[in-house]
């Protein structure tokens, strides 16, 4: 529990820090006071409508992706698994891209996220239909890869045929993932999906622990693999769908965070779930703070930073642990 507590304290500290950073230069204490005190006028508006949703979303998105990544790795018994593996992030991205292309995006601030969620839903339906209710984990991976490839191809097709260079530009930027200019509406949209997904994944901990010894052994220890798979796919889909809808595609969080924290929790899949959720929140918060500090005027995208930090970190981990990998 000590590790989780330490991570939680770091996460809370970053949350406060995140609130004090922005293009409007204000003393830290003033900005924090303005969050609760409406007499600050415009600053209160900035805090409540711009910085607070951004800081909350960083935690929500990061925690969701970290949790889903740990669950996915536990279920597939593979340290290279990540939440996007089941094709949901690809299909959510396709939904968002269609919304941008058709102009639904401009009609309402909810047009894009809702379309992304619809894409995620179609994706999870296709994956479950393809993989079948009783198939092993391999069929699930293959179905996920197929759906991701299809969604990627369709996304490219939309870009390819886009008559409007501005829409194409918009799509490319959206796909890089960002938390800039989000409102509380986005928080309220993502929150239920991440919460439901987290609750569903929470009940898989026992099954994931048992799966350490393989599917046959887990089944004879009383684990219903069919139910576990259903919970896992829908939990992951809810989280990935919800977070992709509001933040775009943010890679490497669900892959790297469980990998870093695994040795610190004695490699137990159930304990890794929660450590990974807090760790994911920390990683996205750090990246989102970095985005605002490094190149504030160039609108650096969050997904670019997580990938830039995540990929070398991952390479380092592979290099370090390659003796243990089969």
């Amino acid at each position, binding site marked *: 529990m000590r590790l989780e507590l330490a991570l939680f304290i770091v996460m809370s500290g970053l949350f406060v820090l995140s609130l004090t950073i922005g293009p409007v230069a204000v003393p830290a204490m003033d900005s924090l006071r303005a969050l609760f005190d409406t007499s600050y006028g415009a600053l209160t508006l900035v805090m409540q409508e711009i910085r607070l949703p951004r800081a909350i979303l960083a935690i929500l998105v990061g925690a969701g992706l970290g949790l889903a990544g740990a669950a996915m790795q536990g279920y597939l018994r593979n340290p290279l698994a990540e939440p996007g593996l089941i094709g949901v992030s690809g299909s959510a991205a396709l939904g968002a891209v269609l919304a941008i292309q058709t102009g639904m995006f401009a009609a309402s601030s909810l047009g894009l996220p809702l379309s992304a969620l619809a894409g995620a839903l179609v994706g999870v339906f296709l994956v479950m239909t393809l993989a079948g209710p009783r198939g092993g984990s391999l069929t699930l991976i293959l179905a996920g890869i197929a759906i991701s490839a299809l969604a990627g191809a369709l996304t490219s097709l939309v870009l390819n045929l886009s008559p409007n260079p501005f829409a194409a530009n918009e799509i490319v930027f959206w796909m890089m993932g960002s938390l800039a200019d989000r409102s509380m509406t986005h928080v309220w949209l993502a929150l239920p999906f991440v919460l439901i997904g987290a609750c569903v994944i929470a009940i898989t901990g026992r099954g994931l622990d048992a799966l350490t010894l*393989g599917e046959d*052994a887990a089944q004879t220890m009383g684990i219903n693999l069919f139910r576990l798979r259903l919970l896992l796919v829908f939990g992951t889909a809810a989280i990935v769908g919800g977070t992709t809808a509001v933040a775009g595609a943010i890679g490497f969080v669900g892959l790297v965070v469980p990998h870093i924290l695994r040795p610190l929790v004695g490699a137990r899949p159930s304990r890794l779930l929660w450590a990974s959720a807090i760790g994911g929140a920390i990683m996205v918060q750090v990246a989102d703070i970095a985005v605002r500090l490094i190149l504030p005027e160039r609108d650096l995208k969050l997904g670019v930073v997580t990938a830039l930090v995540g990929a070398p970190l991952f390479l380092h981990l592979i290099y370090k642990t390659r003796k243990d990998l089969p």
Partner: protein
Amino acid sequence: MSLLSVQNLGVTLRQRPVFRDVSFDLHAGEFVGLIGPNGAGKTTLMRACLGLLPHAGQSSLSALSLAERARTVAWMPQAREIAWPVSVERIVALGRLPHLPAGQALPPADKVLVDAVISRLGLDAFRDRAASRLSGGEQARALIARALAQDTPLLMADEPIAGLDPAHQISTMQVFRQIADDGRAVMMSIHDLGLAARHCTRLILLAEGGILADGAPQDVLTAALVARAFGITAWHGDTPDGPVFQPLEVV
């Protein structure tokens, strides 16, 4: 008391019948060795008994609910899968999972049991080591300990002693025999007929799509049956040190 009752069990995999009309009962106190040539269907038979495979006929285990079955039988698959570098102690403690409500920490009584099986398998020195990084033989013992920690009346294992050195093969057979003598039943598939002859109380010979022989080791490992099922000659006799079975030549 019958701990497993199998009637007319049959399995067909990819349109090919593996075996059919297999019937037997396992009783408390029995240590049953399931023997047979490669491909006879020993693993398939045990998985079907456990309800892990679709099958014709009845097995008293596959009729149970998942939770009841987990408290009735512990199963050790042949593939020694340990996905993560979890400590040996944690691996063994996983055996207590079917007995605990979700989310509950290990109660003191269960801890005592876990400690006892760790000692019984000689794993005290390894308890904090990552199980996935141990040698094959040590992993096998950790997984046997895990199955024992499940503390079920029936234990089924698929070639649990394959890959162990002679000392650990013998001591593992002795542990299984003790468990049976304590009033439980053990069924394991085994290729080493010498160890099977020496330690098992009963042998079931699976060959030619069904049970070819079922009984005391000396009645199953006869020259005729061994030649027919395995295509070998063997010497089988009683010595002052107990029964000895030694395969000799391929027929």
